[in-house]
């Protein structure tokens, strides 16, 4: 690896994040695909933090409030995300319990921690393993959408168990909060600019 890396920014060029075309500094939109051009995503750190903090706050009602409410012959039973996981463990289908636990509880939390770490590492101009941090970011970005799993399960249950007085399932308020958590963390990951990880390294060589 060369000691002094030439980046698009140093060369006075703007790289389109969508189609990769290089344009000279000062170009507003990519002449090829029309995407807005920026050397780095604008306000990347502030936007990621804002979206992430919003997600972290909504994560609390998403876990405490009921996700589904089952009404069967006059009996009403509410389930949170965690009690859904516990139900699967008790009924012996632990692979399903594991899938739901990973998608609904573990991944959103992990995403919040990893993004916080990446943001802090960029803000403190860390030089620690930029290649691994870039990979960590790419994995976080790719895996986040799978948290929508529980929302889809609720959608299917609500459609299937709709038998009037015999049994109905209603979506609970947590479903809405949880969906917001997933969307917000996805947007937070998209607002983060992995090129910031490498900027600290270049400053060191100057």
């Amino acid at each position, binding site marked *: *690896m060369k000691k002094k*890396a*030439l*980046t*698009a*920014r*140093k060369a006075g*060029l703007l*790289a389109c*994040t*969508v*189609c*990769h*075309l*290089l344009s000279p500094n000062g170009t507003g939109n990519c*002449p*090829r*695909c*029309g995407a807005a051009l920026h050397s780095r995503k604008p306000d990347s750190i502030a936007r990621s933090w804002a979206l992430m903090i919003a997600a972290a706050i909504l994560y609390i009602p998403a876990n405490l409030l009921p996700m589904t409410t089952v009404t069967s012959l006059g009996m009403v039973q509410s389930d949170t995300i965690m009690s859904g996981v516990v139900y*699967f463990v008790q*009924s012996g*289908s632990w692979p*399903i319990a594991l*899938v*739901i636990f990973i998608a609904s509880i573990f991944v959103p939390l992990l995403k919040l921690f990893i993004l916080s770490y990446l943001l802090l590492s960029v803000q403190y101009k860390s030089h620690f393993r930029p*290649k691994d941090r*870039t*990979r960590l*970011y*790419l994995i976080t970005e790719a895996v986040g*959408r*799978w948290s*929508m*799993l529980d*929302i*889809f*399960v*609720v*959608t*299917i*249950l*609500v*459609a*299937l*168990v709709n*038998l009037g007085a*015999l*049994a109905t399932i*209603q*979506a609970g308020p947590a*479903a*809405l909060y949880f*969906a917001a958590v997933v969307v917000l963390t*996805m947007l937070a990951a*998209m607002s983060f600019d*992995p*090129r910031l*990880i*490498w*900027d600290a390294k270049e400053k060191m060589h100057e």
Partner: protein
Amino acid sequence: MTSGVLMACHDCDLLQSIPAVPEGCAALCRRCGTVLIRNKPKSFQRPLALLLAGAILFVMFNAFPFLTFKKEGLEHQTHVVTGIRQLADQGMEALAALVAVNLLIVPGLHLLASLYVLVPVSLNRRAPGMFRVFRYLRLLQPWHMVEIFMLGVLVSLVKLAKMAQIVPGVAVYSLTAFIFVMAAASAAVDPHEVWERWEVPR
């Protein structure tokens, strides 16, 4: 197809000139290892065939019965949209809209936009605004969640197995096939080859 181009890595901004990438090979960023260009063989016929199959399957999984709930002589048949409509009826319009976007609208747009760009390209022509449409296509990708929905179907089946008998309909099989066909179509498109059709305006 690809000849030496200057490119900045979208993950670390390193400028590098990429030599011609042979078919079936990929160029990685020298610094952070991200894939920059992947040259895929026969990149227009294959995705087009798959997209046409995808369009048929899309219509099928929307039109045919999805899951049927059976218990003690009771039968309740659902379609893919039933859940979305049911959520909206329960006052969760926002959630219903999100599910509709991820499950029906984005996959539908994805199909249309891919065909709009790739059909003319395979005939060596250009649809108006194709590069812009191709950009929207890339931006839509993370919100295309049919495969996650399918995992949701499996979880729901296990959850309801003790309560009733759930009979899968034609839509379940079409949806499964749709996932594989669309994944294969996306994997077969070489985006670089589309971008390369662009010529610098004078």
